[in-house]
């Protein structure tokens, strides 16, 4: 179906797609939670342990140097992927949640004070709500929330009205995990900067689908997780502008992040090591490079175009099901379809689809305030990756007809 991608060949790169679940071939539509990993990433992970494993940075022997150089190669790869100005602006974290906590606990605690305002949006994941609530409680800053319309788009007028000299930080999601909405982040950033506020973009759901250039966006922080980008779990990135990262106090104390330690006083290491205390997740960082290479070889514009075909196909097919309502109909969306079915609990849908070998996510998707905004307890969410097919979407549709029949 795709002009530029050979989907069957791509599928062959992902061994897990051959799994048989409850007697049926797996249909994996839970990609917004985590994507599957191609052979190239798995090989890199195993290859690291077989040929390079050693602790990094301070070792003098061959393997320590090899592991260090592979580890740092990923950092430069990410710099390139995000088009960051400097490689030390790339901090390795455990994931998006960890990155946001880092910024809230360091930048937030150091620079926010009583009466300052932090702006988030209604469609934030809990991981971009709770860290800010914590720091607001501690500093006396006030949390404000950009509302959305019924389609699941931010009300930009309301956002503009909210901005003032009190606004010190804006932290919004690039792409909504529950709805798929792509937010106008460039405009959000530019307007925040106009009042002197700093901006963090939560890119967890964006990096697998959207081409990124943090310098063009001019965001102050950008964060994402590798496991949603065909890479390993337990590894993420925080991009931050050097001058901000330099001004921020360290987060965790320990090895690697120090320059010199005495019992009287410790001086801290330079960027990026200042924020990387302890032995990092070396193997996953090394393997992550293969994920970026994989995505870039396919070409993100090609991936995005194909996923858009899947989204359109799924949206049309699902809307034809009687009693099914799609939640989140933004004009700009990635390949996520969230829906509710009249009179049927989302958990029942999830259980019965699972019996048919179809993996979807059901529930509130860690966005309870967003669900409250729509007056629902949760949705069923199908999210597509580059290895999914229209035939699989047909199976989802048949599966849902069966669910309806059984629960009707």
């Amino acid at each position, binding site marked *: 179906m795709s002009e530029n991608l050979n989907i069957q060949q791509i599928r062959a790169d992902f061994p897990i797609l051959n799994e048989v679940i*409850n007697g049926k071939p797996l249909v994996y539509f839970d990609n917004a939670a985590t994507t599957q990993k191609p052979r190239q990433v798995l090989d890199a992970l195993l290859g690291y342990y077989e040929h390079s494993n050693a602790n990094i940075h301070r070792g003098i022997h061959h393997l320590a140097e090899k592991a260090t150089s592979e580890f740092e190669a990923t950092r430069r790869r990410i710099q390139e992927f995000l088009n960051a100005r400097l490689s030390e602006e790339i901090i390795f974290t455990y994931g998006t949640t960890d990155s946001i906590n880092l910024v809230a606990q360091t930048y937030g605690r150091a620079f926010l004070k009583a009466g300052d305002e932090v702006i988030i949006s209604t469609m934030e994941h809990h991981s971009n709500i709770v860290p800010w609530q914590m720091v607001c409680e501690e500093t006396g800053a006030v949390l404000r929330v950009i509302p959305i319309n019924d389609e699941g788009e931010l009300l930009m007028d309301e956002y503009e009205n909210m901005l003032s000299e009190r606004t010190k930080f804006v932290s919004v999601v690039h792409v909504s995990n529950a709805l798929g909405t792509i937010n106008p982040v460039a405009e959000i950033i530019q307007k925040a900067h106009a009042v002197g506020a700093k901006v963090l973009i939560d890119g967890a759901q964006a990096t697998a689908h959207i081409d990124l250039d943090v310098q063009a966006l001019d965001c102050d922080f950008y964060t994402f997780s590798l496991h949603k980008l065909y890479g390993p779990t337990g590894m993420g990135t925080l991009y931050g502008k050097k001058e901000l990262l330099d001004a921020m106090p360290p987060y965790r104390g320990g090895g690697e992040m120090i320059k010199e330690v005495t019992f009287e006083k410790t001086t801290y290491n330079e960027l990026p090591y200042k924020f990387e205390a302890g032995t990092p997740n070396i193997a996953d960082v090394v393997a992550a490079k293969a994920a970026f290479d994989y995505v870039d070889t396919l070409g993100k514009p090609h991936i995005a175009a194909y996923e858009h075909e899947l989204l359109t196909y799924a949206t049309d097919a699902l809307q034809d099901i009687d009693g099914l309502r799609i939640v989140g109909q933004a004009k700009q969306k990635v390949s996520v379809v969230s829906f509710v079915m009249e009179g049927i609990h*989302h*958990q*029942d849908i999830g*259980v*019965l689809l699972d019996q048919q070998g179809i993996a979807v996510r*059901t529930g*509130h998707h860690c966005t309870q305030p967003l669900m409250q905004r729509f007056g629902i307890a949760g949705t069923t969410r199908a999210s597509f990756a580059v290895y999914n097919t229209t035939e699989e979407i047909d199976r989802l549709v048949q599966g849902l007809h069966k669910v309806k029949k059984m*629960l009707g």
Partner: protein
Amino acid sequence: MQINEIQDELIEDFSLFDEWESKYEYIIDMGKQLAPLNEAYKTEENIIKGCQSRVWLHAYIEDDVLKFEADSDAIIVKGLVSMLVKVLSGHKPEEIAQADLYFMERIGLHQHLAQTRSNGLASMVKQMKTYGLAYQSINQ
């Protein structure tokens, strides 16, 4: 009937189903047949919160036995809840506290008990046994 006799009967019932559809249709049916829980008992106190669905459990003593009434907002969980009520309700508190619930695993539904965060069923079993223990000590 004793707790284990009821469990064995359920295992027997389920052994008739070859296909997942019939198995789940049976569970859904049991969910539909479960007598609705009086709204008065759907309180914050009686709620067992799962990440996705909610279960309400009401317990009381009648004629020296512990009885349960329950409900859920999701129908499959409700069917499973109805099975747990069928197995455990109406027995002496000490029998409930000590019951070994093996039927879920034998029927092949143990994954639902393992999903602690999503449906609250495992917490419900724990709660039923806690009621058993509590009333057992009151009786003594």
